[in-house]
């Protein structure tokens, strides 16, 4: 028996007349990473939001870490949000500009009071884990580069040692060399912490670097899902192949 921690079945989400997710199913085992790939409008961010209960599903089930999110009560969701964390895309708008980094991290530990002093050791430890210096906890977001801010956002997402982390396009606002560093950091953390992650991206190559399982979304539907190796070596669906061929580094890429 595998240890399934995310199990989405028959998920449908509509915004008014627009059917954003159609009969989407997904599974993820503990300590693995599920890469969700798709282009704009494919519904990949909606899937992430549905997993944390930020959008209302019209039908289907979303089981994450023992909770059925679609039918969950407010109180259940409040507890759930301490076990399942989301790391947002844009490092420039994800940190409160008038709070020090220490305060932001303390708030993740203790949302009601956020006392830095009490949690100082833990904050320092996590800043080191994401490759920053503990002394930086007294600084404000504007003193950091985009890559450093994304490291802080990652620390905030992981500091409670959640059972699942949902990363929504967390490298797409970064320069390539910074992106490479962040991907390396994620690989390290996956190794050392046994992270379970849903990694959402439009970039197939980035997804390949971090994922065990891959799910390809196209216009709100899953067109292909399976082990990463199988998807990249032997894509079955024409859309997956079209995506692969559109990557400038792929052998199938032509401009003629």
């Amino acid at each position, binding site marked *: 028996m595998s240890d399934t921690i995310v199990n989405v079945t028959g998920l449908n989400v509509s915004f008014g007349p627009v059917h954003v997710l159609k009969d989407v199913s997904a599974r993820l085992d503990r300590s693995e990473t599920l890469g969700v790939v798709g282009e704009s409008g494919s519904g990949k961010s909606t899937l992430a939001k549905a997993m944390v209960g930020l959008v209302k599903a019209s039908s289907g089930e979303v089981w994450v870490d023992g909770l059925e999110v679609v039918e969950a009560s407010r109180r259940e969701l409040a507890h759930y949000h301490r076990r399942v964390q989301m790391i947002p895309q844009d490092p420039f708008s994800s940190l409160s500009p008038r709070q020090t980094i220490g305060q932001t991290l303390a708030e993740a530990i203790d949302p009601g009071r956020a006392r830095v002093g009490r949690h100082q050791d833990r904050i320092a430890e996590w800043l080191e884990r994401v490759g920053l210096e503990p002394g930086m906890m007294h600084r404000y977001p*504007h003193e950091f580069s985009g890559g450093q801010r994304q490291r802080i956002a990652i620390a905030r997402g992981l500091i409670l040692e959640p059972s699942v982390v949902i990363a929504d396009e967390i490298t797409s606002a970064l320069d390539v060399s910074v992106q490479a560093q962040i991907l390396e950091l994620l690989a390290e953390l996956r190794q050392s912490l046994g992270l379970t992650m849903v990694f959402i991206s439009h970039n197939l190559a980035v997804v390949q670097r971090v994922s065990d399982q891959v799910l390809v979304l196209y216009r709100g539907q899953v067109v292909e899902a399976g082990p990463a190796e199988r998807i990249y070596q032997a894509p079955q669906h024409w859309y997956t192949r079209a995506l*692969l061929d559109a990557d400038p580094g792929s052998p199938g890429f032509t401009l003629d």
Partner: protein
Amino acid sequence: MADATPDTKRRFAWNGTLICGLVMGAIILLTGLIAPFFLTEPATALGGGSSLGSVPGHPLGTDSLGRDMLARTLVATRLTVVMALGATAIAGAAGIALGIAVWLAPRKVRELGLRGIEFAVSYPTLLVAIMVAAILGKGTVTVVIAIGVANTAGFARLTANLAAGLSQRDYVTTARLIGVPRVRLATRHILPNMAEPMLILVAQAFAGALVEISGLSFVGLGSQSPSFDYGTLLRDALGKLMINPVLVVGPAMALVFASLAALFIGDGLAAAANPRSIGKRGRLRRVGQVPDAASEPPVLTATGVTVRHAATGRVLVEDVSFEIARGEILGIVGESGSGKSLTAAVVSRLVPEGIEAEATRLALGRTDLLGRVSQRELATRIGLVYQDPGTSLNPALTLGSQFGDVLTHHRGLSRKQARQVLVDGFAAVLLPDPAGRLRQHPHELSGGMKQRAMIASAMSTQPDLLIADEPTTALDVTVQREVLAIIKRLNRQAGTAVLFISHDIGVVRRLCDRVLVMREGRVVERIADPAAMTPDNVTHPYTAQLLAATPTVAIGGRAAAPAGGTAAAQAAAEVAP
């Protein structure tokens, strides 16, 4: 950390208006503070010559009880300013509290509250103040409360609107998700981030309150004898306008001076908060002399392009030189802050505000771009395509009318001819139904279609040079490939030289004939054969680093591409929306 350099904190943009306002404000405050100590005696003592005009010793005259008007005006400053400050404080505190309460309230209450606030804002402030004063009775305190209440709605609306905007920010969403209580959200994440616009409103509200309080005192609702403010002084003086006109001068001048001070501070703060609004125009000039080009010059020659930030003198692009021959695609690749886009902007003579650029030579064929160039020549010989097709198109105009203008203005075509050129152009970039597109507005097209339409428009003047600045960055990979293929095809067919700017070395190596790698404003490497470059055969370590950092899909055995039709055609066939 090897990450990009941290962006420096935005500097406070001091400006003349603000300084002027602050100096005036300081004079008023000082007067209000000091005048009552020294001038209360002449301002209130009876006797002496009554109803004097402007005479030595009494430059602004004396009133009917023989009190010096200059002294009275200066002494009145304290009461007037204190009243206006009080009213502003009441309006600010009550308005911000109300706005936050509305934001915190459950959805239905919030919507009702917002409607209420909108309604209150649309009601004239002075009218509300008069009603409140009428209910509470005459007096200094009454007027302060009345004006405070009347201005509350403005603060409440700003607060509620700002809170609604801020609560869409990722940091608020994230904080909410991890369970930060709503009250803490308001006090820690919402309120502190409103400071700038709030300060501006405070200054404006103060100016308003000053005038309104004086107005109420003027009609007799405000301060009552023996206390006096600008309004009461003005009333007394106006009563004797025919007999002793000089009495009006003191209070009228003081009122104008005080409200101007507050307005200057408000406008100055607004300008300081938005430094772009006071930026200097960009400049482009020639330095040094170089001999004229050979008999057949390349399409573009750029020598010694240097760009500085005008205010700080920081060098953003340093001594960049390159040429582009006919039929060639030159790529400039670099990360954010490398100066690649500024270089492209200078070449097209679109130097951004606050930027100074210079070059020893900048020529488009035989035309010297550092000298006088007609707008027509620039518009027809250089085509521009930008990153975000969503913002570079005018949403209010049809494609036909906004793209047709260049052709009718600069190429002197008739409307009918222009239409035909555009239809042909749209067909060349593979837009379905080219003729129908002319009547469409930008929002009716997808991002990829908009970018293709932009390229068609840029090519419609048959330019010698196409400058494309990150034209595919906002697009999906499948669409990116189509757009790149179109650029390449137009380049091969028409021989148009292309300057292609990108952060993606993976894209550049597949499209360009030659590539410049830029870093921190300098060209660190020139690559003659981009298709063949690998991390091992490039010379500069930064290029190797860029190549290594660019993620590339690793593919082994490949499945055959589907037979017949493009991806888009299959998409339509397989998944009907």
